[in-house]
């Protein structure tokens, strides 16, 4: 074998703390190394050209590039060597940037470490084999999980491109958080006016199948061919018959049910249509509030329903579908703000959340768009907004900025003035985070034009005194403690990943961070991909973001999915397990442990043997570590290849 080694400077990223020329000189003495050099930017065009030229000039049969992490540029360089006529798997990377140059400044130690990592890579490369992918057909259907604005956008874009789309929404209506908003910043557009038409498009699009009030039950399979089970929850209303007339909701006697859509601002009935523009506009019964389903007595809705759509015996239904790709767009939830006892912990009715306030502002909300104190229905004059409730707070494990609270608080302060011209708003803030088109101007307008008083400081206590709420906080710019007598306190509650996002991540086999946000493939370069091929991310489930970013990411995810599903055939990753049949004793341990059921027992001349189903194997190598005689090996990560790396460091 003739190995070429290229030590990348990455400008000064590597060369700053690694003597790249010395590493190259060392590498030249390694077994089978025929050519070794250092190079300014291996990944740039001149760098790649130099690699190709060297392969040709020195008749190289394998290449080691020592540069950044293989998670970044392994695909790049594989393509490079392929262009030079080598098999793409005759390539190894040594990570001397993330794992060396960026984590220490000791040049001697770094240089030595880099050289050893190159030695390991070269030792492994000597055992690499040419691998060739296999092709398999793709199911041209996309699953979108979550019908908020991001999911809606992804579904519409994909459907417009001609893909069949299945949109699954947990709630009885799509629309997500955006549907609950009164206006949007910074234009103060009516939220439902701009979202509504998109929701209708979803309902009417011939390529979109909408499963509302449904959840993803399980996912199996792999990119191009995922087998999905969808649980359609019992709504106790036959949606084929339901016309959405709303008669049932008028007559339902269980009038003290929690109103989920309106965030509990005012009660609702047990059978509901969440809001007038709901899509699908169908009634559903919330089991825990229904008198018939809980107590066995009532049945009013069934009596009044003109189409006989009510079915109290309805059960959950499982729908099975095969899809080629999946977009996760499950959004966010508000954090549990009731843990903040200093803000009343939910004990004071006139301390409300921003989303509750949004419902109060909304003309279609429970107060008809009139701002009223929940305690006595009186119109408030002094409204205090407290920002960063649950954001940037390490003490509750939420050290991140929720990103959109500064902006919606400003918007709500403006709307407050619009609704109640003689009102005064106070905003306690930590910092104003308003990067975005027209955003900072907006936060200035609210202060200058709408005279909202912005107080830079945290609130330490909210307590009732008489019929007022005393808001005590610090004004850190003035260096004094301030107390504001408020009629209404609005908490800008921070957001976190949707409550069941971790469960979904496990079903989709994607990663999530410690806060439950799904992990993108690369924070910069793969913002909508995940590390699981065929699964894409859109909206706040990947990280908190506002509406335009969510929409953009929805489109981006759709574009990625369209790109993937535009192909008729996909190449399977050849880094999969293979069985050496003459060494296999047919004990079946690999079959027992394989998480993908990718190994089957076959009969070879009367002997049981294991056989890998190539399109199903995902290449985890669990079988390899399980097989006692090493008869099943993972291509590109065989025992000998890993041993070669170990032995490059310590041998026996």
């Amino acid at each position, binding site marked *: 074998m003739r190995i070429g080694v290229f030590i990348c400077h990455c400008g000064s990223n590597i060369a700053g703390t690694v003597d790249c020329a010395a590493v190259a000189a060392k590498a030249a003495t390694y077994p089978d190394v025929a050519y070794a050099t250092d190079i300014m930017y291996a990944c740039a065009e001149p760098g790649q050209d130099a690699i190709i030229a060297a392969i040709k000039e020195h008749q190289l049969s394998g290449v080691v590039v020592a540069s950044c992490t293989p998670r970044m540029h392994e695909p790049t360089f594989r393509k490079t060597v392929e262009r030079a006529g080598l098999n793409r798997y005759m390539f190894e990377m040594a990570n001397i940037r993330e794992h060396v140059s960026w984590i220490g400044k000791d040049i001697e130690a770094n240089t030595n470490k880099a050289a050893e990592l190159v030695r390991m890579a070269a030792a492994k490369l000597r055992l690499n084999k040419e691998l060739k992918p296999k092709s398999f057909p793709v199911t041209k259907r996309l699953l979108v999980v979550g019908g908020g604005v991001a999911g809606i956008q992804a579904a519409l874009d994909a459907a417009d491109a001609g893909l069949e789309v299945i949109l699954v929404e947990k709630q009885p209506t799509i629309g997500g958080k955006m549907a609950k908003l009164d206006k949007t910043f910074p234009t103060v557009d009516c939220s439902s006016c701009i979202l509504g038409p998109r929701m209708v498009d979803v309902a009417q699009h011939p390529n979109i199948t909408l499963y509302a009030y449904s959840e993803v039950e399980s996912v199996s399979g792999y990119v191009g061919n995922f087998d999905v089970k969808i649980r359609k929850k019992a709504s106790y209303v036959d949606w084929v018959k339901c016309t959405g007339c709303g008669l049932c909701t008028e007559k339902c006697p269980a009038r003290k049910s929690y109103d989920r859509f309106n965030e509990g601002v005012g009660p609702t009935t047990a059978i509901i249509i969440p809001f007038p523009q709901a899509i699908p506009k169908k009634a559903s019964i919330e089991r825990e509030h229904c008198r018939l389903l809980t107590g066995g007595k009532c049945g009013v809705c069934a009596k009044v329903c003109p189409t006989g759509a009510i079915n109290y015996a309805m059960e959950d239904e499982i729908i099975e579908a095969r899809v080629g790709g999946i977009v996760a767009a499950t959004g966010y939830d508000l954090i549990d703000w009731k843990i903040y006892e200093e803000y009343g912990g939910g004990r004071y009715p006139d301390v409300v959340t921003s989303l509750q306030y949004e419902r109060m502002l909304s003309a279609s909300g429970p107060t008809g768009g009139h701002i009223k104190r929940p305690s006595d229905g009186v119109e408030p004059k002094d409204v205090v907004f407290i920002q960063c409730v649950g954001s940037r707070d390490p003490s509750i494990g939420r050290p991140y900025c929720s990103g959109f609270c500064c902006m919606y608080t400003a918007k709500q302060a403006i709307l407050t003035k619009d609704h109640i011209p003689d009102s005064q708003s106070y905003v306690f803030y930590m910092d104003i985070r308003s990067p975005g088109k027209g955003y900072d101007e907006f936060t200035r307008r609210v202060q200058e034009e709408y005279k909202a008083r912005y107080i830079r400081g945290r609130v330490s206590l909210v307590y009732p005194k008489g019929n007022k709420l005393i808001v005590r906080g610090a004004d850190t710019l003035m260096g004094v403690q301030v107390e504001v007598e408020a009629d209404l306190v609005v908490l800008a509650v921070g957001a976190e990943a949707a409550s069941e996002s971790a469960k979904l991540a496990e079903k989709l086999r994607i990663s999530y961070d410690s806060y439950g946000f799904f992990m993108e493939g690369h924070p910069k370069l793969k913002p909508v991909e995940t590390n699981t091929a065929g699964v894409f991310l859109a909206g706040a489930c990947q990280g908190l973001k506002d509406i335009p970013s969510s929409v953009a990411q929805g489109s981006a995810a759709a574009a990625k999915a369209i790109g993937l599903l535009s192909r008729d055939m996909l190449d399977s990753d050849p880094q999969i397990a293979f069985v050496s049949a003459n060494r296999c004793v047919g004990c079946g341990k690999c079959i027992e442990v394989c998480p993908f059921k990718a190994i089957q027992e076959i009969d070879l001349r009367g002997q049981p043997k294991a056989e890998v189903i190539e399109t199903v194997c995902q290449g985890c190598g669990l079988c390899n570590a399980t097989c006692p*005689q090493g008869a099943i090996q993972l291509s590109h990560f065989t025992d000998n290849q890993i041993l070669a790396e170990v032995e490059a460091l310590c041998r026996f």
Partner: protein
Amino acid sequence: MSIQDDIKAAIAKALQDIPCVIGWGAGPEPLRATPLFMRNAADVENFTAGFLAVNNPALYLPSCKGVKTALVVKGCDARSVGQLVAENLVKRDELYLIGYPCSGVIDVDKVAARLEGKCEPGEVTRLREENEDVILDTPGGEVRLAKKDIAADKCARCRYPNAESADVFIGEKRAPVVDQDEYADLADFEKLSLEERKAFWEKELSRCIRCYACRNACPLCVCRDHCVASSREPHWLTQADGVRDKLFFQLIHATHLAGRCTGCGECERACPVGIPVLTLKRAFSRQVEDMFGYMAGIDVNTTPPLLTFRLEEPEIKEREW
């Protein structure tokens, strides 16, 4: 004696339907029996059970696959069979097990120790069993030894003297010798410091001749012909005569036996140069028992612990960083 005859009758009966019954027959010298493959009445006459029935007949099962085979089994042999069945390495319906109550088997090395200064075990010309004793004829006259003093170590911690899974059981079932295996055999070893343990293995394994009798005597080492010990692909071991390779082979054996070893002790008995290789497997077995509550070869319906998992592992306390 009558049990011996009853077993012979059972074997003869089994031979009516089954081509071969594996048991024990007279060996090359008085202290040793040898595995006996019985195919006809004449073979059955050579059958012997009891104190000399040391070898574990389960060893031969994987090579009998596809042919109905009968075994005469001790309790410990039955556990090996059980584990093979649990792992689907042999089919239970291809087996016919004849069980009998085992009261322990001989350890020739212990006899050697008792004869120290008198003669070598190879000079004993006759062995007679008399209740709980054996009487040996040696060049220097008769020597009487209590069976319990020369029985194998495993017999002193026997929890399953009766082959519970036998298709036919001859004789009265015996009470277990102990209710709980306290792993007392590991206690002495564990008194050693880490340095002493390392030195211990270096010394013991320096004798290893790499004959792999330990492996070939193990009823659960079913890879046998394809063992990684002598493969180049994967290439785990060199053929060099060093302690590291020799120890590493034992580690391969022990890790492959983790959660599977029934403690029959055949590996250690088979070792011609007396390396205490069972210790490694026992150390794993104790952990497996503590961590997963699993004992190999008892319940054929439970998946061996390393081939399964639980989402929460109450017994695994991970390190906090």
